[in-house]
């Protein structure tokens, strides 16, 4: 009885699926999906290798400091970094006084201690990076109806994180003539900017890194656009995963211990089973 019911239910689902499949095949044959500008011209990010990559990778603190400088002088005009506190910057190699000085350079929301009125005050090490806009409406009004996303987790919140950030920052270019020829309706709208690494090819952000030397690096590194993009991508890897170094440092001893314990477990298993003709695997598989 169960088997007959089972076969009937199975036939029902197989029939319904066959109907869907037949209609799908028919639709695909008679009306194949037309290519879109996005499907043809969107590019996979260019690979960016960083010191923090791989199981042995560690942050390059000098690069992180340069990247922080790029964020501070360029990105922070529009993008918040709300999950990062100034105190966290000590991980970049700054000492307490430097962190306090950096914090002081930012105005954060505060209250007048005498009147209780809302005002701003210089930041403290315990403060978080302030938001450049009071709210999303203000952000939209100032940015061509787009809210600049928070950057704290950006390299974990996009496929190919660091490579995507790097490619996007260096990928602004005039719209290719071939695109307009194939898709005359896909012209980049006014106030948007063509970038093949962005999912829909046109984004509201104007090219932020435009000229060599836009940021004056203190460590003598030449601030090319490519270098600045790499540095800020590295910095955003750190903001997204500040415990990355500690995680990998912890991982190796853990794996080492487990490997040792596993070898011991294997040897004791072998000894205990000796003489029992443990042919279970051989006979079963």
């Amino acid at each position: 009885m169960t088997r007959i019911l089972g076969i009937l239910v199975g036939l029902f689902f197989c029939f319904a699926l066959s109907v869907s499949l037949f209609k799908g095949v028919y639709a695909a044959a008679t009306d194949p999906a037309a290519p879109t500008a996005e499907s043809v011209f969107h590019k996979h990010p260019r690979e960016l290798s960083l010191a923090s990559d791989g199981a042995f990778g560690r942050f390059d603190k000098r690069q992180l400091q340069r990247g922080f400088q790029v964020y501070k002088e360029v990105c922070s005009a529009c993008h918040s970094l709300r999950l990062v506190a100034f105190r966290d910057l000590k991980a970049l190699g700054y000492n307490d006084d430097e962190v306090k000085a950096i914090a002081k350079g930012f105005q954060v929301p505060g209250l007048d201690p005498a009147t209780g009125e809302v005002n701003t005050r210089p930041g403290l090490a315990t403060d978080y990076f302030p938001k450049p806009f009071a709210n999303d409406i203000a952000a939209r009004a100032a940015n061509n109806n787009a809210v600049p996303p928070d950057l704290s987790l950006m390299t974990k919140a996009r496929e190919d994180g660091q490579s995507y950030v790097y490619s996007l920052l260096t990928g602004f270019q005039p719209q290719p003539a071939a695109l307009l020829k194939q898709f005359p309706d896909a012209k980049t709208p006014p106030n948007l900017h063509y970038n093949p690494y962005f999912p829909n090819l046109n984004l509201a952000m104007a090219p932020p890194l435009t000229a060599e030397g836009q940021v004056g690096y203190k460590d003598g590194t030449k601030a090319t656009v490519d270098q600045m993009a790499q540095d800020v991508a590295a910095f955003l890897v750190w903001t997204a995963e500040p415990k990355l170094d500690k995680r990998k440092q912890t991982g190796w001893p853990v794996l080492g211990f487990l490997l040792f314990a596993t070898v011991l477990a294997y040897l004791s298993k072998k000894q205990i089973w000796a003489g029992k003709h443990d042919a279970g695997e051989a006979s079963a598989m």
Partner: protein
Amino acid sequence: MSFPWAQQYVPTSPFMRWMDEKLPLPRLIHGAVGPGFPVPRNLSYFWNFGVLAGVCLVIQILTGVILAMHFAPNAAIAFDSTEHIMRDVNWGWLLRYAHANGASAFFVVVYIHIFRGLFYGSYKAPREMIWLLGVVIYLLMMATGFMGYVLPWGQMSFWGAKVITGLFSAIPIVGTPLQQWLLGGFAPDNAALNRFFSLHFLLPFVIAGVVILHIWALHIPGSSNPTGVAVKQESDTVPFHPYYTAKDGFGLGIFLLVYCAFVFFMPNALGHPDNYIPANPLSTPAHIVPEWYYWPFYAILRAFTSDLVIPFTHIVLVPAKLLGVMAMFSAILLMFFLPWLDTSPVRSGHYRPLFKKFFFFGLIPCVLVLGYCGGAPAAEPFVMISQVAAIYYFAHFLIILPLVSSFERPDPLPFSITEAVLGHDGRARLAPMAAAATTPDAAGIAPAHPA
């Protein structure tokens, strides 16, 4: 309950004798996972995964309870409290990555455990109850995993919750009120997040309870084994301790190595980047996908793209969405009927030439393809591929399996586990007994011992 030759528990010290009279816990352990539990001597490493699943449950409960101390189940701050755990809580990143990857590890282990049962016929008599309880555990795990994924309140949390609870709205008449009742609103929000947190905390303990029943039911007939031949004599078994404690210890070491490699070196490999974007009800992600362990069923859900209509009319009998929901739930629930769908008296797929072919060249590729398509965008060719694979999935369990078990001629079985392991030595030693038992019943599904 055990085999007559099981080693009896004898407390040695006065304290243990006193303990044995008041609360025979050591006796229970001795008989459950100690020297008092005889286990077939020929178990392969596939039999490690039950213990590993138990370890995963313990890892999830331990990390989860501590994470709950730092997490705030409130839609306004849930995302930030998760990041607070990652950044400010001591070793919080380790707890969270251990928990998130622990869920994946749990499902990997359980899937291997299930497919081991499917191949070796572990669901057949006398072990139907173990299998049924196992399916209950699996269902509870799916519910718990889904609700856990909602808690960080990222984009995939929110939209996953919306899609999955939206499935209930496909039910005729009561669907939409039911969905709103489940969510506590018209869309996932604070009410949903709060109850999901509450249930996500509760259900693992329910799972632990059903796991106890699962193990209890296992101890009635004892473990199955790769030959599927029932235990007949003492030489077929070894005591669980030290033989399988040692073997499980080694398996546990291998498991932890792989698990920790993920936790420490690629903790986000199995997650979706969109869940690092805070939930935004006004911005729909390009592709909404659940966690990888639901992908085969998600593919089945999406494979139903057209309504069933009365031919030559526009009267819809069953809408496509309802078909998809029915099929997705059926795909899991049919597991409950497996012991009665597959009636072959031979348990182990090793001795079933036809079944083996359908298993390795049909079912395994079909589930992998469904899994891949479930994670891919809902576009061609993935929809067509998943339709073909879903047809096979239902055909395999509901049509092929019942028919194969009727028509198949199984290969000859070894007389006993001892013979399977020891070959000619064992055969010679057991020759007088072999003459007495030549019926397929004795070789296949006879009770372990006439008790």
